[in-house]
């Protein structure tokens, strides 16, 4: 397994290199630059700024310069947030995004799987229909609609929960986590229900029941494990969805994560900031997929790693 992980990590390097190169040149093709404002600055001042940030050099030179710096772990200064380096900004945003994302994934898995399992066990009952109807609604309502709705109801009308901010206590995390986790809960519930129903009809479950195994043991030991497989393989896309979802949710709730830097960086032509976030997200998604593959191998004996 160790060699498998090593191989996969080595395979990630060219992928990242391509991501970096593409992103570097793509963002430069966008018209405008970091210092274009409605209040145009005098040409000599703009020249000074370009010189300070090496933007006056030819593009290939900037690219080489950037690659060398990134290899040394230096993502450069931010053009927009001039008191910070990109590393500072990602460093301060990442713990927040991570907390938000992991909490959302955790709830998505536990609640989603429980709901799905219950629905499968009570197939075609009222509970089943209720869960599936809710899940369908959860999937169809995008989080940029869900989030403002939640804030309006729980923050403004009921006054129960804060509508934005971060770092003043756990209550501030509730609404964003709910907004982020809801579509995933819904999706996972549907996945679990489907695979659970299939598993419950399979031969090994019939055998287990025939052996006289108590229903509870049969479910937790045998059925659940097999039913988890599609959920596990969905975790890769789910983490990607949560990362992209957090871009929206962080904006709506005013959460200081890195999702916001991605959007603002692109709009401000803050080249280094966008690049930093792209590299960071790229690495993260590659890692997530790797973890999913490892877990999958642990759960399914048919999958061999080597």
């Amino acid at each position, binding site marked *: 397994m160790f060699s498998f992980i090593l191989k996969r990590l080595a395979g990630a390097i060219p992928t990242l290199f391509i991501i970096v190169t593409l992103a570097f040149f793509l963002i430069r093709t966008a018209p405008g630059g970091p210092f274009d404002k409605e209040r*145009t600055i005098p040409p000599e001042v703009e020249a000074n*700024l370009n010189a300070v940030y090496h933007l006056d050099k030819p593009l290939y030179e900037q690219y080489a310069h950037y690659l060398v710096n990134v290899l040394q772990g230096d993502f450069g200064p931010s053009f927009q947030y001039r008191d910070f380096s990109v590393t500072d900004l990602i460093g301060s945003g990442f713990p927040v995004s991570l907390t938000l994302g992991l909490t959302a994934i*955790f709830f998505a898995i536990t609640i989603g799987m429980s709901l799905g399992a219950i629905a499968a066990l009570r197939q075609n009952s009222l509970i089943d229909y209720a869960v599936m109807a809710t899940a369908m609604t959860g999937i169809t309502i995008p989080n940029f609609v869900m989030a*403002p709705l939640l804030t309006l109801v729980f923050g403004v009308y009921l006054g129960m929960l804060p509508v934005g901010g971060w770092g003043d206590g*756990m209550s501030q995390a509730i609404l964003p986590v709910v907004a982020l986790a809801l579509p995933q809960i819904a999706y996972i519930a549907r996945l679990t229900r489907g695979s659970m129903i299939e598993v419950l009809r399979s031969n090994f479950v019939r055998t287990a029941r025939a052996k006289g195994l108590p229903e509870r043991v049969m479910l937790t030991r045998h059925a659940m494990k097999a039913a988890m497989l599609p959920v596990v393989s969905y975790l890769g896309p789910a983490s990607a969805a949560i990362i992209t979802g957090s871009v929206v949710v962080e904006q709506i709730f*005013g959460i200081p994560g890195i999702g916001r830097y991605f959007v603002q960086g692109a709009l401000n032509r803050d080249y280094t900031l966008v690049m930093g976030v792209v590299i960071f997200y790229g690495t993260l998604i590659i890692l997530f997929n790797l973890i999913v593959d490892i877990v999958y191998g642990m759960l399914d004996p048919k999958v061999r790693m080597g």
Partner: protein
Amino acid sequence: MNKKIVVLLLLIVAVAAGIFFYMKKEDEKVAEEKVVTPTKEMVFNRGNGAEPGSLDPQISEGVPSSHIIRDTFEGLTAEFTDGSIIPGQAESWTISEDGTTFTFKIRSNAVWSNGDPVTAHDFVYAWQRAVDPATGSEYSFLLYPLQNAQAIANGEEKDLAQLGVKALDDKTLEVQLEGPAPYFLGMITHSVAYPVHKATVEAHGEAWTRPENIVSNGAFNVTEWTPQSRIVAVKSDTYWDKDSVKLDKVVYYPTESTTTELKRYRAGELDWTYEVPNDQINWIKENMADEFHVSNYLGTYYYGFNMTKPPFNDPKLRKAFTMAIDRDILTTNIVTAGEVPAYAFVVPGVTAYDAVYADFNGMTQAEREAEALKLYEEAGYSKDKPLEMELRYNTNDNHKKIAIAVSSMWKKVFGAKVNLVNEEWKVYLETRKQKEVTQAFRAGWIGDYNDPNTFLELWLSDSGLNDTGFNNPEFDSLLKQASLEQDAAKRKELLMKAEGIFLEANAVAPIYHYVTKRMVKPYVKGWQSNVMDHIRSQYITVEK
């Protein structure tokens, strides 16, 4: 295999528990803080727009950071609640007879937050830093009235000491201007002219503004800066006028989305908003009118014409299109906060000036439209042979609504075919600057200081901001004469004449003058609207 699942589940539980306890700890930390600080503490929760780009007075640009820097630093002069200029770090000053030499006496009790005295050398250092090309200051041009400032900024003069500012002794500063600039005392209330603490800047580089490093000389000191979340500034105990500062703490909340900001205000998390969302103004007027504050702002929203290319190189056509806009419809139905229909470029009410209006100001809209149609036909177009043109704006709901309304007015009056083109902000700025494909475009201008000069200098033929291609030697020379004129009345006349020439050319169609609009809780006292919208927290009290 089972063991592995157990391990996996344990791992998930452990992560979840970790997160839970981490957050709970945060909760407790907050709770502890609440116990330690007395409940009577007066805190002002201020919505503050976008995340500030920088808190470095010479580097920063943009309105959000300027609000914070005005609270945490202080220049030679300052502003009272109504925007009038009052002594700041300087207790007094004298101006030479020719108006080009200013001598400032700095307060003996002006002190940095680390206890060091604020000296004339700090100002010399800061101003040299502002114009030094290596600093990359975006506002260095505000200091161009100083002797040799422009030469230093564009690299012709390498010796920073040649800048027209000298410390005669620790507490006396002498400033040499190129010509008399009556707006100079107001202009140095801008952050680019604030002093900075040399030792701190040199010791920490770009990180000197972080809470753990920053040394400032204003009414508040920054103690916490969490990007995209909040900036906390507490009352300074070294500020010379600390006794008049009532707030214990100001918390600035960056809120990119005005909709989110309004929700946080309604939920009681903010006492003051930076703005209000345009599409909710009618709802606010119906439901929260008492807390909705609108006041005149020193800015103009306008449409510019590209004068360098057909069709708008034709002055008759420009005039026709300028006259055909029914500004009253726009300000009553589209921008509804109380914006003022504009027939001038310099905002009426600016100091040391009498408003100059376009010649069609006195006509009724029907007369304007009849006259406009005549000009349109003289320019060679008609209902049968209509002008087909593009109107460009940057992607934004408000701009879109206005563009749709204006294009339908042009359609109605002339039968012109107007294609609306919207572009993402930076793309739009680029095409506008190139003056190639752009025909008509939207723009806005907010004055940098309270003087007509900040509006008129845009249209100098060599101005980088002049995206219309307006080029009039007489206009240029009038502005030049005004900058050398010592007599205030004569200067005013020169500037008014210049604006008259500019309006006659119809390089731009002024549409409305901006207003500031914000929500303020009734318990926030001690503030007053002013045209610059410089609201300093040091005068504010929160009387909950």
